[in-house]
């Protein structure tokens, strides 16, 4: 979707402001939100792509004015309710009003912690040979799906070069729509900045994206 989350190349957000000696969490609740997000993942009620899409679906005003972990919190609460893990009246009451139903696994305990602090695996067997090879010139498609996609706006409709081939991975556009993993080849595609931003762009800048095969076409 063409949402405010797709920020590459926008102007007006001001300077980047690094914080010296920044703590890992600025408030206690941020750590709890992070930990709950990791823990609840084991129930496989949704995927990483669903959770990214849920943040993108926040209204632009909410997206732009909420703190990072606040967006995670709102997203988690909404998905927990949508997927029936908790109920709206329980949120209002601040406590459980009925037992969990249809739990796919037992309680998330200390023994499960290690498994969720390691990143998941998103590589999958390839469904077909790769259409492109390293060195090929490719054009990204000019597409504007109203659902989740990982092809940023600034990189649509531009010609680049395939630099790396990463094997086939879960296709986020499909997974976030609840249509299954639909594995697709993943490439690093490199663009000259002037191809993306015009003749005034930095002549010594190159930018790459990670592009799934359905985003690409032959030049």
């Amino acid at each position, binding site marked *: 979707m063409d949402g405010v989350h797709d920020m590459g190349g926008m102007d007006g957000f001001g300077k980047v402001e690094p914080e010296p000696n920044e703590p890992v969490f600025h408030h206690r609740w941020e750590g709890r939100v992070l*930990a709950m997000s990791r823990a609840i993942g084991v129930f496989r009620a949704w995927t990483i792509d669903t959770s990214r899409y849920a943040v993108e679906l926040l209204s632009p005003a909410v997206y732009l004015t909420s703190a*990072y972990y606040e967006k995670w919190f709102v997203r988690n609460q909404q998905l927990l309710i949508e997927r029936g893990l908790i109920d709206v009246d329980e949120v209002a009451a601040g406590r459980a009003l009925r037992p969990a139903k249809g739990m796919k696994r037992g309680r998330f305990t200390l023994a499960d912690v290690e498994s969720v602090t390691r990143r998941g695996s*998103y590589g999958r067997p390839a469904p077909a040979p790769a259409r492109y090879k390293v060195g090929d010139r490719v054009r990204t498609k000019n597409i504007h799906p109203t659902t989740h996609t*990982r092809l940023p706006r600034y990189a649509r409709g531009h010609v680049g070069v395939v630099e790396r081939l990463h094997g086939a*991975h879960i296709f986020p556009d499909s997974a976030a729509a609840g249509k299954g993993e639909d594995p697709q080849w993943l490439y*690093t595609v490199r663009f000259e900045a002037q191809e993306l931003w015009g003749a005034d762009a930095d002549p010594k*800048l190159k930018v790459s994206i*990670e592009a799934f095969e359905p985003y690409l076409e032959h030049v």
Partner: protein
Amino acid sequence: MAEHDHDHNEGSNLSEMELRVRAIETILVEKGYIETAALDRIVELYETKIGPHIGAQVIAKAWSDPGFRQSLLEDASKAVNAFAQVGRVGEHLIAVENTPQVHNMVVCTLCSCYPTDVLGLPPTWYKSFAYRSRVVKEPRAVLADFGVALPAETEIRVWDSTAETRYLVVPMCPAQTEGWSETQLAVLITRDSMIGTGLPKKPSEVA
């Protein structure tokens, strides 16, 4: 009076988030999905165990051991596994090397993808709208915000992490570190130097 109102408002905002988060945690615990101690442990791991010191050890070894450097550039997930503080490092980690000709920078313009296994949780600036919007278009101006100026002839390469691949920058080893141990070298390697918004410290800065 105005100051009092301000404090009061800020206080109630913070406690409102705290209360809302506590409510969800209580519900999840009472319904039997999670145990509180497991959440405590996750927070503790990210606060104490999983952080940029892991990446710094990796880079220090790459600076000291040409064979390891080669393995790291060929298959970073595999090369880095020995450094995992907890479990194993996840898949799809890619190391990209700075040279006198090319300086690498990493971003996620769409959300906040970051090589958490080796750098811990991302700093606020990495997730900021300013960084995400600007670095793919004007990275030299972003570097200036970090107090870094590169020669005009240095090529800048920005990697936008739009999939599950994760990028770790291998910065250039500072001069006058001949004979240094990996432990000594690791002190020079900052988090930002492994994202590309900073350079390693010079030996004179840690003396």
